Each structure stands twice: as C-alpha cells, then as structure tokens.
C-alpha cells in the first residue's frame, strides 16, 4: 500500500545521522552550506567503514595472535621470508629500558616517534608472519601481509565505488535540473509551497528556503545580463586582468612548493637529534606540517582576494577558487611524498642497504601523515576559537571603524570543503602507512561537525551573495574524487615498485610489497594459478580495454541521440505555446 512505502522511506530518512542539524542549517543558511554538512557526514561514515575494515582484518588478528601465543593454544607464526637482518642494521626506534623525561614522552606522542612507533598505530609494528592455529582438528591459517595488502586494496576500491556512485547520481541530478530551464519561476512561485507541511518549524524553514531560492535565481540572472552586456573594450581589460592574476596565482603555487621542499629536506636531515629544548624539538619535527599548513592558510586568502577582480558569476567564482586551492593542497601532499621518496634513494650505509636517518620509511610517511592530521585539526580548532569568536564579539560590541570594515564572519564554503577534502586525502594515504589513522580522522570529523555548526550559528551571518548550490554539492564529490586519485596513485606506485624496508612492517625482506600477493598465488592449485596469471597479463588488459571503449562509444551515441530528442521536444513545447496564443486571439476575436 503506497502510504506504507512512503512512510517507511520517511522513517529511514529520519534515522539518518545528524538529520535535524542539517535540516536546521538548510533553513537558516541555504542549500550550499547544507551540502557542506551533508558532505562531511558522508565522509564521516566512509571513514568509519575504512577503520572497521583495517581494524577487523589487520589489527585484531595481530593483537589476538600475540596474546594467543601466551595462552597455550596450538599456534605457530612463521616469518614469510627467511632473511634476517644483522644486528647493526636492525630497526630499533625505541629502547624501553632507557630513562626518558616526561616532556620527551609528550613530544613522542605528538610526533609519533619513540614509544609511539612501536604501537599498532604505525606500519612498522606489524609482523610479516603467517599464523596457523590448530585446534580440535580445525586448521586456521591467516597470512598477515596478504591481509594487509588486500584490506588496503579493498578500502580503496570501496571508496572508489561509493564515490563514483555519489558523484554520478549528483551529476545526473544536476544535468536534469539544468535541462529544466523552462518555467522555473512559475514552478517555484505556484508550486513552491508544499501543502503537506504541518509543523511550525518546517514551515519557517520552507519560507526561508523559498526566499533564498528566488533571490538566488534573480541574482544569477542579473549577473548573466551584466556579463552579456559587456562592451568589447571592457572585455579586453577583463581578459588582461585575468591573465595577470593567473600568473600571480601560479607564482604563489610554485613558491609554496619550493618552501615545502626545503622544509622537508631540513626536517628529514635533523629530525633525529633531540636537544633538551622542548619547543625547538617539536617545531623541527613538525616543520614540514607547519610549512604546508601555513601555505595552505595564506594562499586561499590571497586567491579569494584576487578573484574579486576577475568578475565571475558567484557559482563560477566558488568553483575556480576551489580548483586553485585544491591544486595547492593536493600538490603539497604529493610533494611531501616525493621528497621522502627521494630521500630513500640517498646515501647508503655500508653493509646495510638502507639510508641513514630513515630506517623505516613507511613508518616515517605514516608519522608525517599523522603529524599533518593533528596539525590540521589544531589549526582549524584554533582559528575557530581564537579568530572567529573574538571577531564576533568585537564586531558586536565595538562600533569603531575597524570592526565595521572587517564585518561579521561569512561561512566560506570553498575553504571549508577544501579542509575536509585535504583531511580525507591525508587520511587515505595515511591509512595505508598508519592503520589506526582512520580512527583519528573519524574523531576529528565528528568534532569538526559540531564545531563548524556552532561557529556557523553563533558567528556567521547568512551569505550576502546567494548562489546555486545543488551543483556545488556534486562538485564537492568530484573534487573528492580528484583527491582520491592523488591519494591512491602514490600508494599504488609504492606497492608495485618501491622496495619495502628491510626490517620493519609486514613486507620486510621482499622486493616489492606486491610480492605478498604473488607469493600467496604460488601456493594455490595449478588451475587457479593459471587463471590468475592470465588475468594479470597484458592480453587480458587489452581485451578489457577494447570492451570498455566499445561501451563508452555506445553510451556517447545514446547521449547524442537523447540530446537531439530533448531539443526537438523543447521546440515542440514552444510551438504549442504559440498555437495556444494564436487560438486565444482567434477566440477573443470571435467573441467580440
């Protein structure tokens, strides 16, 4: 019975996390900000999935097997490759017997070194053993390196599938609403009010959102008129301005990357020396993170300032600022990765084949990601508490000129979206090198949601420039997809090509991390092996490639056909309108 279906769909929507908060935000601040919070919620749930995957399949077995060894169950763990590293090359980041000051422990907690390195948090802790438990005639075999790799592969795959589905759905929606350029105003005015609303609060929200939508549409139309009415001379001036501003933007990007390069080199070189000065130690180890965060902080402000002179429509302004800032942020993360990689191929200690200063480069990367996450979190927290709240207090209570010029805070969507995309990209890379990092990211996003909502309600005024937001919602997911590719690429490269450290982590001793899979394939029965080898061979890839190209061509052809159909139907509609006009005039003439 139809009513039951509708009621159950309603109820499912009710159960959604944070539904009331997001609904409130929508009513008071419009669709754009609502899509930001919906995006944050989606990422929060995604990170919970990733964390569960990693935790259940890698962390729990590691811990369980270790404790089972002591409990007398018939369990044996064998290292999967026999190479033993000589004592002077062994990986030993932390000596539990040495006496360390309390401040040392605090530093280690925040930088992930020392005692933190020997915990589940980082890659270096996990063993490369396969465990067999034999009890009551039941054999349980668990291969940790294989599990690690498969889980990583799986969470990337899961993220990709969910992301593409979401971005695709959003894209379809935005395409549909784009086509519906007919009668938008009439639709909004005459069919805008939902007669089913019974609740006072919902009615208020509906009133505000209707007002915002109408204002948004009108504003966009005004801007479009202004753009089309530019004279030729104005256009030339505008284009030269845009050209120079883009040059400046590129210059800023390059400068930030160079700064990050030097900071990373310095930190890598001096990261191990501990003076007794607490603050100095902390700053040296956090140097890369500090430089990255400062660059990411200042550059968007400059971009936001510059883009006003470029005179784009509000929707495009947001997208363009987003693209520029995305470029900067993701480039910094990738750059960091590249710098660490370059350092791996550096000076080599005789007799040992790893570098001075970086014995376990995966753990080092994990530590960098850990530091970046923490730094990012504290910066956002600090900015919200120490800049936004006082700003509100000053603007409200003091009526001096400075306060009036500064004005009340406006919730800047591009920046906040970038913050979370950036945090998520670090989370993805970090999840491979520091398996417990997703849990930190989950907690961070949880706190972010309430922090941002609080800051929004108390500090911010509604946007003075309303803009079409549903398209921005899809745009966020597309940006996230870019972040995902940026995160996945280095990890895939390191799994397939880079040599894992000799003495730490689940892949020690092998030539590449991917060898875990090849090794386990070799233990499978012959027929399965030949199938898997075929799947991995170039021939198979070519077949798949050709099939995908054919499918793509088919869909493109379908799309062109549909587009033609749509324009034909649209023409029919206008003709119909003209017919009615004609008939109406005939009727009036006849009745006279």
């Amino acid at each position: 019975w139809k009513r039951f279906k509708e009621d159950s769909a309603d109820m499912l929507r009710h159960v959604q996390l944070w539904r009331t908060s997001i609904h409130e935000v929508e009513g008071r601040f419009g669709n754009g900000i609502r899509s930001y919070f919906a995006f944050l919620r989606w990422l929060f749930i995604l990170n919970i999935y990733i964390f569960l995957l990693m935790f259940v399949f890698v962390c729990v077995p590691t811990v369980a097997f270790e404790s089972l060894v002591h409990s007398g169950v018939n369990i044996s763990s064998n290292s999967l490759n026999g190479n033993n590293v000589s004592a002077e090359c062994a990986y030993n980041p932390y000596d539990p017997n040495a006496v360390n000051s309390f401040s040392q422990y605090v530093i280690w907690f925040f930088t992930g070194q020392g005692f933190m390195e020997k915990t589940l948090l980082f890659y270096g802790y996990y063993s490369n053993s396969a465990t067999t438990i034999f009890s009551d005639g039941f054999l349980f075999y668990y291969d940790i390196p294989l599990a690690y790799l498969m889980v990583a592969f799986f969470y990337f795959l899961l993220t990709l599938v969910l992301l593409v589905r979401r971005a695709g759905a959003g894209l379809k929606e935005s395409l549909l609403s784009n086509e519906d350029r007919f009668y938008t105003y009439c639709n909004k005015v005459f069919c805008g009010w939902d007669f089913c609303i019974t609740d006072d609060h919902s009615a208020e929200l509906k009133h505000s959102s209707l007002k915002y939508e109408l204002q948004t549409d009108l504003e966009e139309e005004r801007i479009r008129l202004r753009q089309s009415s530019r004279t030729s001379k104005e256009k030339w001036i505008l284009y030269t301005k845009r050209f120079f501003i883009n040059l400046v933007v590129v210059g800023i990007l390059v400068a930030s990357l160079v700064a990050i390069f030097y900071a990373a080199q310095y930190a890598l070189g001096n990261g191990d020396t501990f003076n007794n000065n607490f603050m100095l130690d902390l700053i040296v180890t956090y140097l890369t993170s500090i430089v990255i965060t400062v660059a990411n902080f200042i550059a968007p402000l400059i971009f936001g300032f510059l883009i006003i002179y470029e005179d784009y429509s509000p929707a495009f302004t947001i997208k363009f600022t987003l693209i520029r800032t995305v470029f900067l942020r993701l480039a910094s993360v990738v750059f960091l990765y590249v710098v660490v990689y370059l350092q791996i191929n550096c000076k080599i200690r005789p007799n040992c084949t790893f570098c001075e200063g970086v014995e376990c480069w995966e753990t080092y990367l994990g530590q960098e990601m850990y530091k970046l996450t923490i730094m990012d979190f504290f910066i956002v927290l600090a900015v919200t508490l120490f800049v936004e709240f006082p700003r509100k207090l000053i603007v409200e209570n003091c009526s001096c000129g400075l306060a009036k010029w500064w004005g009340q805070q406006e919730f800047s969507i591009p920046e906040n979206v970038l913050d979370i995309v950036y945090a998520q990209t670090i989370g993805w890379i970090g999840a491979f090198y520091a398996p417990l990092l997703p849990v930190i990211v989950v907690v961070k996003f949880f706190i972010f949601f309430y922090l941002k909502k609080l800051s929004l309600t108390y500090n911010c005024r509604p946007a003075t420039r309303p803009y079409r937001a549903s398209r921005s919602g899809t745009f966020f997911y597309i940006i996230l997809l870019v972040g995902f590719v940026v995160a996945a690429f280095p990890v895939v490269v390191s799994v397939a090509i880079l040599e894992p450290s000799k003495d730490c982590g689940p892949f020690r001793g092998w030539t590449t991390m991917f060898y875990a899979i090849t090794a386990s394939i070799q233990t499978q029965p012959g027929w399965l092996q030949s199938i898997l080898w075929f799947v991995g061979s170039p021939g198979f890839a070519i077949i798949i490639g050709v099939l995908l190209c054919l499918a793509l061509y088919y869909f493109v052809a379908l799309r062109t056909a549909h587009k033609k159909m749509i324009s034909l139907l649209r023409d029919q509609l206008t003709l119909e309108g003209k017919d009615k006009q004609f008939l109406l005039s005939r009727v009036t003439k006849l009745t006279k």
Partner: protein
Amino acid sequence: MGSANSHFTKDELQEYSELTFFTKQEVLHVFEKFVELDQDNVNNDKLCRVSMEKVCQMPELKVNPFNDRICRIFSTSQNFDGSLSFEDFLDMMSVFSDQAPKGLKVEYAFKVYDFNEDDLLDAEDIEMVVSRLTGYAGSLKDDEMQQLLKNIMQEADLDNDDQLSYAEFEHVISKSPDFLNSFRIRL
C-alpha cells in the same frame, strides 16, 4: 467509528463517496476531522457551519500561507465569511486528495491564487502570492519583485496582456513537475 456511523445513513455515505473521490471509510475519517475542529457545535448539528478561524486551526492548514483563500473558495456560505459546512469541508479534502485529477486541482489552484477574484492572475495577485510564500523570512525587495514579475510574465503570459488567464495558467502548471506533489493534503 461507532459514533460517527450514527451521524450518517448508509444512503448519505453512499452519496458522499460517489460525489467525491473518497471511499466510505475515508468519508467517515474526514468527518472525524471535522468534528475535532468544533466539537460542541458539530455534535449538536452535523449540518452546521464551522467558522473560518476554527478551520484554519487544523494542523494541515495552520501553517499554510494560503489557508484563508482555501477556506473562502470552498465556502458556500451566504454571507461570504469563509465558514465551511461539512459538505464544503468534504469537497475541499476531496480536491486535495491524491485521487483528484490534475485538471481539477489546477482549477482550484487558480482560484486560490486569484486574490482579487477577477478570474485573472494579474501583477497584484502574483505579488500577494510571493509575499505569502516568503512569509516569516521577510519579503523580497521592490526591484527583485519587479524582476520576478517580469520573468513570470515572460514565461507564462502568452497573449502579452500582463495578466494570466486560466488557460495560460493551466498551460504552465501542467508542465510543472512539482505541482501534484505540493498541491495535496493527506489526512
């Protein structure tokens, strides 16, 4: 249920359900709602009229910005005070139900939006509609309102007389995807 049954004979129920889009059960359900509006008067005399204020207290109509217009167009009262008898009320609920055809809804929607009741939607009417829609949030500025009016006329006014006749209104609304979903009240 039992008490409501005693208010109507079988024939009356049959008649009501034939004349509206409701089944007999639904007619009785509507009557219950009607009783809730003004218990004492209705229990005494089921043919009495309930005043407009009391009808607009109904949860489904309370927050509706057009509730007074709705009451007025369905009211068959001689002194045009918007009061509704049960038959008017049943009529209203029937038009707003899911089973009512689109054409009927469009007709009544036109009447609701026609504030000055001249069978045409002119600029004055549309301005009222828009200001009712924005309600609590405050109304649009003057120039925005003018721009909006211009756009609506551009979209819908086919004979360029600066007002929308029923035919033009019907043409626009029947193409609108949201109309059926918005213009209904579920009891």
